[in-house]
């Protein structure tokens, strides 16, 4: 089974620019999550999709972040405009969503805002 894939693996942008991150979950996984790890801190929850619906977006930092999951398949996370504090590693994970289902993570997108 193909794992969770994320694109790009690295992105360097200037403050004020826009960046879009993409995540392709494991086929058949209705649940998709975005997480972020800022250097020296723990991995923090951003939001959770069930199919195409946002189940929980309580972790989204502010309205510069927009996540979508068209058709309940892949998801995108757009940051517009990017700020210096947005730098970090953005992880996507998917799961079957049954109770106790483990999260399957992608390898992350390392975003650097200069």
């Amino acid at each position: 089974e193909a794992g969770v894939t994320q694109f790009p693996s690295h992105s360097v942008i200037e403050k004020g620019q826009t960046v879009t991150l993409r995540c392709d979950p494991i086929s058949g996984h209705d649940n998709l999550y975005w997480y972020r790890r800022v250097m020296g801190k723990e991995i923090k929850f951003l939001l959770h999709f069930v199919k195409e619906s946002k189940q929980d977006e309580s972790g989204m930092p502010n309205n510069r972040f927009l996540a979508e999951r068209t058709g309940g398949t892949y998801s995108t996370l757009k940051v517009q405009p990017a700020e210096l504090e947005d730098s970090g590693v953005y992880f996507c994970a998917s799961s079957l969503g049954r109770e106790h289902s483990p999260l399957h993570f992608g390898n992350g997108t390392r975003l650097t805002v200069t």
Partner: protein
Amino acid sequence: SQKIEQNSEALNIQEGKTATLTCNYTNYSPAYLQWYRQDPGRGPVFLLLIRENEKEKRKERLKVTFDTTLKQSLFHITASQPADSATYLCALFSGGYQKVTFGIGTKLQVIP
């Protein structure tokens, strides 16, 4: 506020010994707890799950304990190998299964 504590300092042990990592939490009533392994440049990989009504869980050389009174989980790797070197994360699930909260992780270095 809710808090998960893992020793963020690296743990160095000799090959063949048992490594023990600690996860403490406060202001949580987790339904269950998971442990993940993360290698540099990679995403976390699921290892083990333990439910609140379970005291201990084993998988090959791995063992996890869960003490809801002490609010603590211990993660053991027996007969450790250099290939076990990685960062180990504990994750708590509470209030439904969707939202997961991670600890900062403990970096384990197994010295040959």
